[in-house]
């Protein structure tokens, strides 16, 4: 297959020197280095022993409470809350990393609020949120008091009176809802002053250096890369700024969309300066970001909602993906297989993240990735508003609606938004189904990479040997999978509570995710800066990508709804009843 200069390429014979000269390997080493630093910092210098002690104490309380009552008591929940408060990113290292990787903050009317917040502004925000918090706290205290009385009444009957037990369960459930509302209101009063400008400068220099070294190892000019990198970084910062505005966020227009848009506006009006182009290392940024993303792809998550969740997210999704790809090839006759599979993956799996992983795995062109992400963003914005409204209008049960939205809306944030609009239970089910689906990107990237290496890039009538498959296979996918499998095993060994406190709330949220976010934003800025509107328009010719997306998504909507109904209401109604 003729390789395009825009495609993500790593071809030819394998040599030992590939390990330190080729982009795929360098992305793996850079990703591994960031992961290793985070793991060592949180596991060796973090509060692991203290967490273990607190988790053990909470577990003891929960065991005693479970033995005492036939339902989850107030003390059981309080012990659970204590475990939930354990957060490794609150350690010194976590605070240091978080400070130096900050993205511009939220703003409504003044863009400067994204960079600088004074002590007076923080105080004013706290004062604004205080009445609501006080009200929520009072409601929480009242609900707790009622729950305590009901539990004591049930305890007075040695938990043998079913009516009293049911009353206690209902009151405890009310208290948990009030507790959640109080917690949400509390988040609005913890405002702190900040100035992100020095940390953004420091971060820019750091990223320029680490990727600059990689560029040097690839035999290119490091100084030329660093010189242009500042422009790419500036576009990414501008994208974060525009994407963190309240209304922009509401419609799903985040930093990634703005990075592509701003980059393209600059490239197609002012013209991207030639000295910036060597810094548009789209593939290098993406591949490194994907290796880091591996730490967030935990296979243990797929059992979070039991068998119904696996069927909705892991059975429907591959069926839709494969059918959409075949439909694109056989019916629509899409000229580009890579565009076909990237759209199929981003529509069926999880939007932007799946598009990035699949595009890199099958070496799609930048324009194809841009087009797939653009389609996903537009339909995500529409679906997140229309679906909850439709579900409410037809009186569909919340859990069914939640499962349907979780399995079909592309972006996780949009799923949470649509779920919250429908109700708490819809949010819980929708967000969890989406999380299970998110985990699928590892398998999708691997299968697509393998299929492309074995079938698509094969010359007609020629069999492909193992060595040739190895030569063609995008190696960074192996790094991505290795990280994903290692973290899944580590998470399993640590157990749910320690895994959440140390891995999820430490290594990932306080380390790898922060860098991954920046690397993807940089890659989107670089894509925009090196994309020509005319080139992009060619890929949209005949509207085939749009037709593919609409047909695939329609099929997805029908199949997911049927599967969700069968699983949650016919095969496992007891799970639905518990939710």
């Amino acid at each position: 297959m003729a390789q395009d200069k825009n495609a993500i390429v790593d071809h030819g014979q394998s040599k030992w020197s590939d390990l330190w000269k080729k982009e795929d390997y360098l992305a793996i080493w850079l990703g591994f280095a960031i992961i290793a630093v985070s793991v060592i910092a949180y596991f060796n210098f973090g509060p692991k022993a203290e967490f273990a002690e607190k988790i053990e104490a909470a577990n003891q309380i929960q065991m005693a409470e479970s033995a005492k009552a036939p339902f989850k008591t107030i003390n059981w929940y309080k012990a659970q809350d204590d475990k939930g408060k354990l957060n490794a990113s609150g350690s010194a290292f976590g605070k240091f990393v978080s400070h130096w990787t900050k993205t511009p903050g939220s703003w409504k009317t003044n863009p400067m609020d994204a960079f600088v917040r004074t002590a007076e502004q923080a105080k004013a925000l706290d004062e604004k949120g205080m009445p609501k918090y006080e009200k929520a706290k009072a409601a929480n205290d009242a609900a707790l008091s009622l729950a305590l009385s009901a539990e004591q009444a049930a305890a007075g009957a040695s938990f043998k009176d079913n009516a009293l037990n049911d009353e206690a369960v209902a009151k405890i459930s009310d208290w948990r809802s009030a507790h959640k509302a109080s917690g949400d209101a509390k988040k609005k009063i913890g405002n702190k002053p900040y100035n992100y400008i020095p940390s953004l400068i420091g971060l820019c220099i750091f990223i320029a250096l680490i990727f600059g070294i990689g560029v040097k190892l690839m035999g290119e000019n490091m100084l030329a890369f660093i010189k242009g990198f500042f422009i790419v970084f500036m576009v990414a910062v501008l994208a974060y700024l525009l994407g963190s505005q309240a209304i922009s966020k509401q419609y799903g227009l985040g930093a990634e969309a703005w990075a592509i848009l701003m980059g393209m506006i600059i490239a197609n009006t002012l013209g991207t300066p030639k000295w910036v182009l060597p810094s548009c290392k789209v593939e290098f940024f993406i591949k490194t970001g994907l290796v880091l993303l591996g730490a967030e792809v935990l296979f243990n998550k797929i059992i979070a909602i039991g068998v119904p969740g696996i069927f909705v997210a892991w059975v429907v999704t591959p069926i839709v993906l494969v059918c959409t790809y075949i439909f694109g090839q056989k019916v629509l006759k899409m000229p580009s297989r890579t565009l076909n599979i990237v759209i199929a993956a981003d529509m069926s799996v999880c939007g932007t993240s799946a598009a990035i992983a699949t595009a890199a795995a099958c070496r799609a062109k930048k324009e194809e990735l841009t087009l797939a992400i653009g389609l996903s963003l537009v339909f995500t914005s529409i679906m997140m508003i229309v679906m909850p409204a439709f579900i409410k209008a037809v009186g569909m049960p919340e859990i069914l609606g939640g499962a349907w939205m979780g399995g079909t809306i592309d972006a996780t944030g949009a799923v949470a938004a649509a779920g919250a609009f429908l109700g708490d239970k819809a949010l819980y089910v929708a967000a969890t189904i989406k999380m299970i689906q998110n985990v699928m990107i590892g398998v999708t990237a691997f299968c697509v990479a393998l299929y492309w290496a074995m079938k698509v890039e094969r010359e007609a009538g020629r069999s492909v040997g193992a060595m040739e498959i190895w030569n063609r296979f995008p190696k960074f996918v192996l790094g991505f999978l290795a990280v994903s499998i290692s973290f899944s095993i580590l998470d399993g060994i640590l157990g749910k509570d320690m895994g959440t406190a140390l891995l999820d709330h430490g290594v990932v949220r306080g380390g790898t995710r922060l860098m991954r976010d920046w690397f993807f934003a940089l890659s989107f800025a670089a894509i925009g800066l090196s994309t020509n509107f005319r080139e992009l328009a060619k890929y949209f010719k005949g509207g085939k990508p749009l037709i593919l997306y609409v047909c695939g998504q329609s099929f997805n909507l029908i199949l997911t709804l049927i599967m969700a109904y069968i699983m949650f209401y016919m095969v496992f109604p007891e799970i639905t009843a518990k939710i």
Partner: protein
Amino acid sequence: MIEKSLSDRITRFAIVFGLTLILVYGLLPWLTGSFDILNRMSLALDENGINPSRYYYTDVEQVIESEQYLRIVLDGK
């Protein structure tokens, strides 16, 4: 191809960028204010602190809350 002058390019950039900003920060807020459903959604998002533009589950705080809720209600009694 004839290279356009710097002033031409700056003008084009200002127009396109300006139109984009008007579309996003003018039209979209107008839509939100004009339609009840969009307005309610905007308030719900603000209240719950949800950012619909985030694409992966680790970027969305509500996912871990949902997972924990389901773990509790589906676990045994």
